[in-house]
């Protein structure tokens, strides 16, 4: 990835060039976004076009719509709460069930086709099914989020557990590291890179399903509000909702990256050593 200035070249660190380099990477980071917003502002200056409001109006709408305590408490926080709970549930279920399946060859063979099938079902089509089965309430919205985001975690855990280095397993067994101890110190670490990859997918699917479940059947929440604004032709408000979802997506990705760095620091470290 083009991750800023190439760190591979340890040139003599003169303070002057360091400052200049920092400035350059800052310029690269904000240059294009600023340019785009300015272009957007110029293109929509004095516009009467209903669909593309100028950025200043979207920003005002953003502050007045989403930062008011009323919407924050009624719509935004419950949505985010359901998202968090749903994804956490998916991770717990996925890791626990995935370990059981991954460690038992016959169980894996028995269930694999069915699991592949369930993963292939677009999660959104389960919304109508779950609406029928559970009615329209928070449970159904949670179930929608879990029903979509559990699969990547589950399948990646199965793969990760199955891929544990057999030498490692045998060694720990001959040292009588068994049961929970082996799980905690051998299987789980070995599977964690795969599990984290699954969690990342689960997060983005969960976010999508949070929005969808509210678009369908709800009278509150982020997804409901955005659709409501669209139907009322409150276009600036709708844009601000899209902006908010974008920010949530970016924030979730950033938090994930932090957590991943912490959880897998040994893995990234060993990869770097292997590459050097």
């Amino acid at each position, binding site marked *: 990835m083009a991750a800023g200035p190439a760190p591979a070249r340890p040139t003599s660190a003169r303070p002057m060039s360091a400052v200049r380099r920092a400035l350059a990477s800052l310029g690269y980071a904000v240059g294009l976004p600023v340019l785009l917003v300015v272009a957007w502002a110029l293109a929509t200056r004095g516009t009467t076009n209903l669909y593309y409001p100028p950025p200043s109006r979207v920003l005002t709408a953003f502050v007045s719509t989403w930062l008011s305590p009323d919407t924050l408490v009624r719509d935004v926080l419950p949505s985010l709460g359901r998202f968090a709970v749903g994804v956490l549930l998916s991770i717990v279920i996925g890791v626990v069930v995935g370990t059981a399946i991954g460690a038992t060859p016959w169980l894996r063979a*028995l269930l694999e086709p069915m699991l*592949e*099938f369930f993963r292939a079902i*677009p999660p959104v089509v389960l919304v109508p*099914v779950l609406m*029928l089965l559970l009615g329209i309430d928070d449970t159904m919205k949670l179930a929608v989020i879990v029903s979509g985001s559990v699969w990547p975690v589950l399948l990646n855990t199965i793969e990760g557990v199955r891929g544990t280095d057999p030498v490692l397993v045998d060694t720990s067994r001959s040292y009588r590291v068994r049961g929970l101890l082996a799980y905690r110190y051998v299987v789980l670490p070995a599977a964690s890179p795969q599990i984290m990859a699954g969690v990342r997918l689960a997060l983005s699917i969960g976010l999508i399903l949070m929005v*969808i479940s509210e678009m369908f059947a709800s009278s509150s929440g982020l997804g409901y509000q*955005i659709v409501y604004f669209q139907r009322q032709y409150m276009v600036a408000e*709708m844009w601000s909702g899209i902006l908010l979802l974008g920010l949530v997506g970016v924030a979730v990705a950033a938090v994930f990256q932090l957590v991943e760095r912490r959880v897998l620091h040994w893995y990234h470290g060993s990869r770097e050593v292997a590459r050097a």
Partner: protein
Amino acid sequence: MQQIDTVTGPGPGDVAPGARSGAGARAGGRAGGRRGVAPRAGGTAVLGTLGVAGFALTWELVAWAEVVNPAYLPRFSTTAARLVTELGEPRFWSALGDTVVTWALGLGIAVVAAVVAGAVIGLVPFLRRATHSTVEFLRPIPSVAIIPLAVLVAGLSREAALVIVVYAPFWQVFIQVLYGVGDVDTVADDTARSFGLGRLQRLRHVVLPTALPYVITGFRLAASIALVLTITAELVIGNPGIGRQIDVYRSAPDAPGLYALVLVTGLLGLLVNLVTRLVERRVLHWHPSVRREGVA
């Protein structure tokens, strides 16, 4: 040129037949190895079939015991029968056709745009650095967030659906192309240069083989994402297709029809996975990852 030929040269010679005619032909040379593997593979298939049957049976029993209101959870047998009648209806096939066309159009646009944009941006270091922050911001935006916008601008139409179907797969492929183009081995590139290969030739013989595995992986992921988004769009926006039919059955309410179509979407997803894996194997038959798979 020379160097590249030695890399890809032996590939097509010994692997292409296997890739073309499947596992059977490949096993010819090493029948001994196959003997050890075959029963295990057979056992897996049996267990897998048992798993599917077990699922159907569980469904049937749960519905039969009326744990849930039978109007909401039809039996498996009812659903399967409904699926069969559904297969005989022209309405079903036209919906399926609509879905497939939207999917293919969206995927095609996304892949072409992503490959072109990714190659241009990936090959120019300045553009790469300048777009990094913007890409990292736009990529995680959930595609459903732009549904209202698409509806507002394009109405309840296939165009609105296409906006969504193109958005997420585009990033998937785009990022892969960036990685792929950035992964070019400097030694290979320098070698090609000193052999006097021009810019276009290096693009063809150095960059393309390096980036292709990445692109194909991106394509495979994008194909499933595009299908999910196609059906999502039909369900939420209401443009014709399987997704809309599901919503029709939901509001009817026609539970067997609903469940039958959910099964269809799952099968469709499996089919897409299967086909893209085949494409991957074919396009990358020369690549070590595919070749190793064949030997093991």
